[in-house]
């Protein structure tokens, strides 16, 4: 895929934290409405790729283009205005705030809480609607994850970055979480997801990237990666 046709285009990206370099010449594309996952062993720099897109790492080289705009080296505060939403892996809700307040904070950059987006979030996650006034800190892991996603959806982003959405969830909730992500994607939002549950993530996504030690290793459709002998043996546990 060429950079011109994609929503997000990462080219020759070098990035890390402080003096520590994690990523080497990374490339990555997400097309409009596409569902892309990043898999790979621990320490492969999966989350770092995502954080770099959102301006949370130290930039060391290369470029990141989103919807035709160069967002390389810009701050998260800035990038959020461009239409990218980010759901961190841990501590991703304001625990002392209510569900409704968490969602309102998701739309902080807008003058008022957008009614249509709020209604959509409540329709997508009925549990949040039921618990509007509950403090986020008293909710279960799965509910918090939904709240975190709901908060990121308040600005109706074109691209949603999800860092390990199934981490720490009870097994029966993992499927539900992936179903929700499918729904969000089907409604038109492009997804870039890092996932440790690689098999399930590849089964659901359009395309997958395999990273090893901060470098691109494989890229193909999710199904093709699942069928690939080498990928299966090395990264999916046989």
């Amino acid at each position, binding site marked *: 895929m060429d950079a011109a046709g994609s929503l997000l285009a990462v080219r020759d990206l070098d990035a890390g934290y402080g003096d520590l370099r994690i990523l080497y010449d990374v490339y990555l594309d997400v097309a409009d409405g596409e569902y892309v996952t990043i898999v790979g062993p621990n320490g492969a720099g999966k989350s770092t790729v995502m954080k770099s897109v*959102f301006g*949370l790492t130290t930039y060391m080289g290369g470029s990141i283009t989103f919807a035709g705009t160069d967002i390389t080296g810009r701050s*998260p*505060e800035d990038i*959020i*205005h461009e239409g990218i939403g*980010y759901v*961190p892996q841990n*501590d*991703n*809700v*304001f*625990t*002392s*705030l209510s569900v409704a*307040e968490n969602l*309102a*904070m*998701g739309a*902080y*950059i807008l003058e008022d809480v957008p009614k249509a987006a709020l209604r959509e979030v409540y329709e997508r996650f009925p549990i949040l609607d039921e618990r509007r006034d509950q403090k986020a800190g008293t909710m279960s892991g799965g509910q918090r994850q939904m709240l975190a996603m709901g*908060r990121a959806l308040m*600005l109706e982003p074109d691209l949603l970055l999800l860092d390990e959405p199934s981490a720490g969830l009870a097994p029966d909730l993992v499927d539900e979480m992936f179903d929700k992500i499918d729904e969000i994607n089907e409604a038109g939002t492009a997804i870039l997801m890092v996932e440790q549950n690689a098999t399930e993530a590849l089964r659901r996504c359009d395309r997958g990237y395999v990273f090893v030690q901060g470098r691109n290793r494989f890229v193909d459709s999710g199904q093709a990666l699942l069928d690939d002998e080498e990928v299966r043996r090395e990264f999916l546990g046989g």
Partner: protein
Amino acid sequence: MGIADTYSDGRRFVVARPFALIVGLLVVLLAVDFVSGLATGRIAVSDVTTLVWDGLMQGLVVGLAGIGLSMTYSILNFANFAHGDYITGGAFSGWAVTYLLAGLGRADVGSLLLIGAGGSVFGGALGIGITATPIAVLGGLIFAGLFTVALALLIDRLVYRSMRDQGGISLLIASVGIAFALRYLIAFVFTTENRGVTDAGGVPGIQGYLIDGYVTVSAHDATLLVVAVGLMLGVHFLLQRTKLGTAMRAMADNEDLARVTGIPTERVVRATWVIGGALTGVAGYMFVLWKGTIGFNDGWLLLLLVFAAVILGGIGSVYGAILGGLVIGLTSSMSVLWIPSDFARAAAFFVMILVLLFRPEGLFEGRSTA
């Protein structure tokens, strides 16, 4: 449950928490002494009422001053030791304006602006009071708030902002330095002498006979009550009902998440200094109006009680600061029933230590602003 169970439960409690038992006994002892004192007339009901009222007033001052400290702690993650001198700065700036408004034409402007440094003008002679010179008091009160906002923003800009990424300890030590610099700058300009600023005899009050004596509520008490409660309600409304207040709570809760959510964190920090500064300046002004004297050490001495209140309430919690202030105020005022008044402060700290032993996180769990 049988008697044996009760007995063994009791024994387990005594063994596990002997300290709790001692404190419990002490509380019971004081309560018994208090009730018997009241019954025998050894402790006058009117005296107790006066002490409670006095403690309440002191508590309001401490609580009001504590809100700003708690806010900056929860959002900037450091204990600002210069806070006491912000209180003093607010008091002096406000009273300079009050003197100017009350005494213009009757004394020279320089003496008025220096709050009668060196005995050049006396507040009593100017007849300053909420009823006699309401405009001068109101003007001073507002200026105290504005000045302290400017002071807090200036110091943040010059010192704290560039240290934002450093640890709380570096910031704390820097703030101690600022505390000294401010205090002695104030002393240099206004002299170190403690002086009366209100026309204490001319402040009207309501006196009521209660069972065995008189209880007085002065107009300045009433002013303090109205201003403090009004501002506390205002802060509550701000934190719970406004977008900025919610963002402040969000940032106190999780600063990294606030940033990736798009909350403009520097702007929230500035708003925190504005609100905290205004409350602190007003607290300093009201403290002086209520006690009737002003001194360059006022805020620094008050700061210890403010810290006690804020820690007692759960550092970082605004409601904890208010409640902690009332507990500290009431304790130090009521303690004179049993101990010499010189030790009233010690009693307040003793209660703080006790509360923290049993509830280390404070009355309200801190770091949440709410």
